[in-house]
């Protein structure tokens, strides 16, 4: 799954230095949301915000997983760009204490314009991530008219006969959003925000309602197809596969024994809770 509109562009790898395989980047929601929060807290004069990306490198150095990010102060004027390196160092030391596994993998900026300053900052971060190439994540917040929210990732290569830090070619690389089960459930909460966390039974209920809605849609489609409306044969076969899934493991015998086990658990849990409550109350009893 790609972030943002799929690109049809052909990428040329113009790397002239040591040749790396094109890294593939996965990004976790915590990093994305940190960037958005930083953007929200920018000053009026700032066109874009930048910061450091923290993450881990997988086996073979070509799979980079961006797991977190922190903001770095910088200023851009028409003449110069400055990055507060002291702050960057201090923040990195702080995060290193808590999570020594995460190292600097690159930097982010908001907006999608890559300019000379981007090349300079990229040059600075390349020294931080050496010997690996620095990853640049450009996050488009979608707040400007005509621009769609999305995330793009780049690595850079020097350009020209005499490479200068302010000149670089940014080569797009694939970036995907990676969510594990726990993060997925956190995101589900955020999708329905503002909300309060609910119990598991309520969660199951809402999921079942979703499934019922989907079944209704499929049923409507199937009835239309049965009535003679042209339908997709591939879709029919897909539905057949999806809905014909067996539930044999819950066969007649299995169901009863499993039911007994579950009821036993429920009984035991209730018993333990009742005993605990009684014990707590008994501790408060005084002799008359």
């Amino acid at each position, binding site marked *: 799954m790609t972030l943002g509109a799929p690109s049809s562009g052909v990428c040329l790898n113009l790397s002239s230095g040591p040749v790396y395989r094109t890294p593939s980047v996965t990004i976790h929601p915590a990093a994305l949301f*940190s960037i958005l929060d930083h953007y929200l807290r920018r000053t009026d004069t700032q066109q874009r915000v930048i910061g450091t990306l923290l993450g881990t490198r997988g086996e073979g150095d070509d799979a980079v997983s961006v797991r977190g990010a922190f903001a770095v102060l910088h200023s851009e004027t028409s003449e110069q760009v400055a990055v507060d390196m002291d702050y960057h160092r201090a923040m990195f030391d702080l995060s290193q204490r808590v999570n020594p596994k995460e190292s600097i993998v690159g930097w982010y900026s908001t907006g999608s314009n890559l300019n000379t300053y981007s090349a300079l900052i990229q040059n600075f971060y390349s020294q931080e991530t050496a010997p690996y190439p620095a990853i640049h994540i450009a996050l488009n917040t979608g707040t400007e008219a005509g621009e769609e*929210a999305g995330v793009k990732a780049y690595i850079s290569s020097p350009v020209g006969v005499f490479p200068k*830090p302010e000149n670089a070619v940014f080569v797009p690389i694939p970036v995907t*959003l990676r969510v594990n089960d726990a993060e997925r459930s956190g995101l589900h909460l955020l999708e329905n925000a503002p909300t309060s966390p609910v*119990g598991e039974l309520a969660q199951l209920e809402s999921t079942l309602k979703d499934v019922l809605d989907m079944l209704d849609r499929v049923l409507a489609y199937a009835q239309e197809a049965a009535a003679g409306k042209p339908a997709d044969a591939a879709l029919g076969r897909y539905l057949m596969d999806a809905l014909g899934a067996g539930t044999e493991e819950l066969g007649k015998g299995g169901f009863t024994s499993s039911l007994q086990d579950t009821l036993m*658990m429920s009984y035991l849990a209730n018993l333990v809770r009742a005993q605990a409550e009684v014990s707590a109350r008994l501790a408060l009893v005084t002799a008359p």
Partner: protein
Amino acid sequence: MAAAIAASLPAPQAVSTPAAPIHEPIPASMSKLIDIEAEIPLNLVQLEGLVVSKIVKHSSESHLSVHGLLLGLDLDGTLEVTNSFPLLHNSGDDDDKSSKTISMSDFRRNTRETSAHLPWQVRADDSVVGFYQSTTMGAFFSQTLVDTQAIHQEKLRHGGVVVVHDVSQANRGNASFRAFKLSKEFLDAYRKTPFSAKTMINHKLTFTSILEEVPLKIRTNPLLSAFISSLSKRRASPLVQPLPSEVYHTSLPSSYSTLDLGNPTLTKNLENVVEAIDNYKTEEGNLAYHIRQIAREKARAEAYVAKRKEENANRVAQGLAPLPEEDITRLFKIPPEPSRLESMLMLGQVDAYAKTLEGTSSLSLVKMYAARAGMDANHEVFP
């Protein structure tokens, strides 16, 4: 190459001129909402989307229980938590407190240093309003939690809150966040050492009344919710003849992990219950031993006093001067009454584990009947 960077990055100090704090008078419309003395009681904890994802990330990285600081502000009874910062993992219980305080003071120092000369940092909330803790199977009562929270109670505005995140529920597809603070009765009792049976009775304390839950709300700022909705938007596949499962693709596919029939954590949960009960039993044994010890010493002291009185009565009858009454506290060392806190917390653990077990088993009961209904229907259609 180095010369080029130095030329283009002139003196980073140039940008970090400290901005003098400007104290504006509180506008009249806000005067009722801002309470400098923290007089408005907290009635809602509001977690920002960023905090949710940061806590989930931090918790899922470690198998152990993790904790961190919550940063934010309170306004009109709503505690807005806008950022969080993870603290060090600690392995042992002994160096628990020391490592926590070290890292917390580190953090304090760092934020203070940086916020002094970083204009943007002033825009982010950097006041500590509480801490978060991850847990498995819903059991989070521990001495550390209570101790830390009791320290916070004195240092932080509103006494700070603790947000508990259940990792095992999150892995099953339901992110659970709950906010707590220590109850007033418990704090009163906690300050009195030793935490004896008498204080417990006076304050009517059971494990259910240690913490009081504060309602919790999840909020996303408009930018974040716009971004999430654009992530979860379905896009048509660019392929000409895609597979039916790939006609639409989205960066955030829905997961239906709550519908999974199996429950892999059930055995572990049961083990936890048994273990918690064992721990509680041992602690109760220790308590009973201490109490017997106290009773024995007291009986000996009383016997001694009675004997001395009898002797004195005899001597008076015989016309002799009575022996002086000796200080019995010096002769008999009556051990102090043991603290009941540990055993109360353990009982809380037992109850929490059992409650989770109850919840999951009732959930799987529902799922089993649903699955059987589905299976029966399937048999009718495809006999």
